[in-house]
């Protein structure tokens, strides 16, 4: 099951050239672009591992593509995303995030039902990949 979160996730995977254009747009808007990776695909997993520092003062997106490729060398089997942080006073938030790398196999999620008092049922989703320990999930 293809994980769809962030922008462009219903489109085919972006090529390096397309990543370059998107990242360049963010840089031109004055956002700090950075690269992050994770092997926990849960949609509520907001804080991914940082790959290097956010690139605050690189005027060209070639550096972003370079870092994405460096990250792929080491974490090629995990999810990698590019995020653009907007630090305009009073804003301080992520303006754009998109996945640039995903595992070859995405096993998807199982729906878990927990029965509560009365007839209440709580639902949660659980990634099949997360059954394995961290680091061995998408080997």
């Amino acid at each position: 099951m293809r994980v769809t979160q962030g922008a462009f996730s219903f489109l085919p995977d972006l090529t390096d050239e397309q990543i370059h254009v998107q990242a360049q747009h963010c840089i031109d808007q004055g956002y700090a672009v950075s690269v992050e990776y994770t092997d926990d695909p849960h949609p509520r997993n907001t804080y991914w591992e940082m790959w290097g520092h956010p690139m605050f003062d690189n005027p060209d997106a070639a550096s972003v593509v370079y870092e994405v490729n460096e990250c792929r060398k080491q974490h090629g089997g995990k999810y990698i995303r590019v995020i653009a942080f907007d630090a305009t006073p009073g804003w301080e938030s992520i303006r754009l995030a998109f996945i640039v790398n995903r595992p070859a196999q995405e096993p998807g999620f199982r729906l878990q039902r927990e029965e509560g008092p009365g007839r209440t049922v709580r639902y949660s989703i659980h990634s099949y990949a997360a059954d394995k320990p961290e680091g061995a999930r998408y080997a």
Partner: protein
Amino acid sequence: MSLDASIPTPPLSVDLRKDFEESGVKDVLDELDRTLIGLEPVKTRLRETAALLLVERARKTLGLNHDTPTLHMSFTGNPGTGKTTVALRMADLLHRLGYVRKGHLVTVTRDDLVGQYIGHTAPKTKEVLKKAMGGVLFIDEAYYLYRPENERDYGQEAIEILLQVMENNRDDLVVILAGYADRMDRFFESNPGFRSRIAHHIDFPDYADNELLEIAETMLGEQSYHLTPAARSALSDYIGLRRTQPHFANARSIRNALDRARLRQANRLFRAADGPLDAAALSTIDEGDIRASRVFDGGLDVDRKGA
């Protein structure tokens, strides 16, 4: 409308002259001619490089096979011969030709590339390289990167990363190494990898005396000062004498001399003036302001014998 019509067909001919004028390359080269005095061999090389890139671009529009040329360069020459200034122009030129995307210049020295501890150098060098992507990386006094006397020196690590990025990210950045000619030669001898990756070696000649005088007048003109005829001949004597003394740094020495002359002029005005001064008096540098220099009585104190 048929489908074929919407696909642009490659043009059958190109007008290099028109390309030259429209891309703004002509403006850069003209400005170079106007603002840089002397440096004929350098200007010739710049013009040749521009021609190469224009032809390369024209070949591309015609759909001919083209291979992006490597443009890593080395600038060698004595201090104060305009290496940094030319690098700045080069970045502008490459940007207008579409060879680099942003055309900014990042100037670094050994300190910016080499770290103090193990494992500190690689991230530092990569950070600088990333900052320079899309533009030009200017490494001043590049020979300091390699210190053969210390085999644990981290400079070697920086050199390796530099070489790797110069090779793999050729489209993303242009690296210019600069330094004194003899030391750069030794640097290239001990790092053959660099020599083979740098196609363009440009040598910056020393300025002639009359060129330095012209440069001095341009510098003063920019700050709206001017020389009296007597001061002009004093400055010309000064240049002749200064050249024979140690630590002569071409245009930089002249700029320092002019700064000191302005200081003396200000002092002279302050002490001598007892009435209102007009703009002409405030912007005139007189013979005395220049003749008072230590250069006329044997040079700097530190270098004077027996002092």
